[in-house]
């Protein structure tokens, strides 16, 4: 085969992966831009997306020097932590009930869980605001927490469910056969195997909370979360430290997900959970669907 023909054949065979590579690059462009411009020196220490002034570590060093930014970030972190804790607990319980038990009203429960995921954030935020206004309830951290837990529950349920469905009940039955009571079984068998799913769900809930803008904007009153802070300063000059922080958050997230994946692989090697059944989730998080 001649060289051009070979090249063409190679191209045709690999068109799909090449395309995938391009698409993935497209997904990552803004992240790269954000990271790159966190290193650019700017005259007023405000983001200008120009590299004329040279490279600097200054903004990474002074990342935590802006009080409002720190306040906003710590508020967001606290909010996300509480929201994750509560919604993961509630959501896991719901998932267990939905998958493992028979009861009346399952359809209604399913519906109630699915609909918030399908509701635009504007509507969720606005309706919550309507209720809080009606009760002249002071807007602030509490109202934010309520809202965040609310929209996280559905996602937690979906993720944990999918993990539960692929769960090999034989292990639990074996434990029961060996004389373990329900609690012991749960503690030593079910929970450890379920853990990666729960952790994935928790990560998702955390990411949703920390990133939320619209619902928070409606219900925060005067409390400032990290996204709300970025919105505020975007109108007048973003301090470059924000970019550095955003890049840092990204790196931390990457590490966290990598750890989860790693831990999941280990858990799987320790017990024979059927890998192919893991794909049964509409919103797979790397922890659940992709472990082959």
């Amino acid at each position, binding site marked *: 085969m001649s060289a051009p023909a070979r090249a063409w054949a190679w191209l045709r065979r690999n068109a799909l992966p090449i395309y995938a590579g391009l698409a993935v690059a497209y997904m990552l462009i803004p992240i790269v831009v954000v990271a790159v411009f966190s290193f650019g020196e700017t005259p007023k220490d405000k983001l200008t997306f120009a590299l004329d002034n040279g490279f600097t570590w200054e903004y990474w060093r002074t990342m935590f020097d802006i009080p*409002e930014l720190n306040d906003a970030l710590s508020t967001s972190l606290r909010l996300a932590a509480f929201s994750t804790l509560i919604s993961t607990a509630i959501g896991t319980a719901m998932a267990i009930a939905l998958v493992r038990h028979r009861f009346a009203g399952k359809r209604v429960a399913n519906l109630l869980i699915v609909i918030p995921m399908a509701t635009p954030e504007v509507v969720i935020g606005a309706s919550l605001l309507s209720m809080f206004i009606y009760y002249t*309830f002071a807007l602030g951290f509490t109202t934010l927490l309520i809202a965040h837990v609310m929209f996280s529950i559905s996602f937690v349920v979906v993720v944990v469910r999918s993990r539960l469905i692929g769960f090999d009940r034989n292990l639990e039955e074996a434990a029961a056969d060996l004389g373990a009571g329900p609690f012991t079984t749960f503690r030593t068998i079910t929970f450890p195997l379920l853990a990666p799913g729960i952790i994935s769900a928790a990560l998702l809930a955390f990411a949703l909370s920390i990133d939320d803008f619209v619902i928070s904007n409606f219900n925060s009153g005067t409390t400032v979360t990290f996204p709300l802070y970025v919105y505020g300063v975007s109108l*007048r000059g973003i301090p470059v430290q924000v970019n550095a922080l955003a890049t840092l958050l990204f790196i931390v997230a990457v590490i966290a997900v990598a750890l989860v994946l790693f831990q999941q692989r280990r858990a799987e090697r320790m017990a024979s959970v059927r890998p192919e059944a893991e794909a049964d989730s509409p919103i797979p998080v790397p922890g659940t669907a992709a472990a082959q």
Partner: protein
Amino acid sequence: MEESRRGRAWGRVTAALAVLALALGLTACGGGGGGGDNGGDVTTAEAGPVKGDLTISNWPGYIDPGKDGTVAEFEDETGVSVKYIEDVNDNNDFNGKLEPQLEQGESGGRSIFVVTDWMAKQMYDQGFLQEINPDDLPTVFENMVPGLKDPSFDPGRKFSIPWQSGMTGIWVDKSKAPEIKSVNDLFDPKYKGKVTMLEEMRDSVALVMKGEGVDPDEASDEDWEKAIDKIDAAADSGQIRSFTGNNYTEDLTAGNIVAAIGWSGDASIIENENAEWIMPAEGCVLWSDNMVIPVGAPNTAAALGWMEFVYEPEVATDLTEYITYISPVEGVKELVSPELAKDPLVFPTPEFQKECSTQVSPDDVAGISEAWADVLTG
């Protein structure tokens, strides 16, 4: 498990009824409706020893920051611990955010806001502000520029103390559109999509009215509507790229626009040496941003202390040198650097400002505001 179809349908109906009953029940035991009203008693801010914590809400870029800044100086001198938040980006947005709390008599922990004249008046009318006793502010009233002592919206300065004044005109990128001299030039098709206007109705619409030869002070509601229609048409056709808050500075810096209706003191924020603020041929709009003390302010004594502090000429000078807006304090001109003293944007002469109008509100505020809001949301 099999449920009969009928059973399922009934189950759903019952569930729906239960929810409805629950909601109605909550309504019954719940709070009141929207419009609160404070009962009408206006309190006067209490003076006292200046100490403790102070939280201030201000517009961005309105203070000299850092260890040598005004806030740090105040903290050193008085021992007050100041939390300075730059969260006022737009008068309406800020008021909207705080309104639920203000109606309850709460200020969200803040003891001072800085809002523009008309918003200060609106907040006062809504019962959200405390009054200020001039006897508590000797330095302020001694050093305040005479022209600001008795404005029409707050005669005698009962509830507002000027923070800075400014002028709304047109920022022009001289390298790309040197011929722009008037607000009417912004409607020129050759700049299509390259101009922005402010979201602030009392700036943009007033300026356009002046361009039509109408004096905003004497303008009727129809004049306002005509100007709004003109702007609406330009927005629809894409002539006006967008309506901005403080962010027109970004577009100027990025080179996305050649001209913007904007504020005179923003030179320090715009990273474009070719951008220049011009006084429009028909004149500018004059306004002031004011410090006000809200109801429920936790530390009015410190708030008053802050006001006294920033009216000292040396402090006011430091502020002006950084933020380049028009200071309300007498004596600053003598203390600033010579080039700044000559800058007409910071120390405008009456001659320079002769065509300018102060910011006013239309008669039918609600109706005109709504018409304007429709233009803003396309």
